[in-house]
């Protein structure tokens, strides 16, 4: 089938970045996007991932330039500070928009009014 016949929403969803799209990494990036910075323990508690699993995901995100990892100490305790990079934030937002456009095709996207009501309740 020629590419010209593919709906743009489907083309975009097929081109989603799999580094970001993996559920645990998507959650990690979303959490880091909503704060300035966080440490390893907080991220582990918020995601429910094990130490090894979180380390592995962070390694992949760091290698892809989506997250910055800064190792240091707080007193005598090692502390790893994590931030989403500007590139990571931009790519996550682009990915989110592509998904929203795609889900809109099958009526999964909530209406704007419902979104607004939910936002006001929070």
């Amino acid at each position: 089938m020629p590419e010209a016949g593919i709906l743009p929403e489907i083309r975009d969803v097929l081109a989603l970045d799999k580094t970001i799209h993996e559920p645990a990494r998507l959650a990690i990036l979303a959490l880091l996007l909503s704060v300035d910075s966080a440490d390893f323990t907080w991220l582990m508690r918020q995601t429910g991932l094990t130490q090894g699993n979180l380390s592995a995901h962070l390694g992949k995100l760091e290698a892809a330039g989506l997250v910055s990892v800064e190792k240091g100490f707080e007193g005598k305790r090692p502390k790893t500070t994590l931030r989403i990079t500007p590139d990571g934030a931009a790519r996550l937002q682009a990915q989110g928009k592509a998904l929203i456009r795609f889900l809109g095709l099958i009526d999964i996207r909530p209406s704007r009014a419902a979104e607004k009501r939910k936002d006001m309740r929070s």
Partner: protein
Amino acid sequence: MTMPMTRALYRRSFDDGWLDVLTGLGLVLIGLAWLADQIVLGALVPAALAPFWTIGRRALVEPRLSSPQFGSAQQAKTRRALTGWLIFGAGVGLTELAFLIFVNRGGTGLGGVGNVAVGIPAILVGLGLFAGLMLGAKRFAAYGLFAIGLGLAGAWTGTDRPGLLILLSGVLVLACGGALLARFMMRYPMTGDEDA
């Protein structure tokens, strides 16, 4: 403008119960000071307990859950909320002082208007507890309603001990805070050294 996830995470950062424990303890101490006729000591309680907010967070919460750095927009919102709470607290303090002067001038008997006035401190405490909503801690509305209910009940039954009403409000907040804190500590044991 903050994101919905930032606001949700921020709200949850007060779910450990430490804020409730400190607030409840403060009300219990204020109530006891009133009962012992040491109202000036009661007025010092908020200032005396304030440093324990950070001490408790560092000792009990952060080693278990840690805490992220929220963005400057969220921090500014918190500053505004806490400033509002402090201003409201000062207003409550001044009103209670005016109440005391009113009661003292009327002698020790609290007949007539005094019966209504005896519930006012607890009602004001209840209104003050509603300020917890500014931090997104919705349970503080329930505490506030309880304190207001106690104030009204105290006025209706004609009690002459406003300190007791504050003490009882504090006991409820302290008990709920203790339960929340215990649940938090069981859910999140101390972490060892982290490794990323």
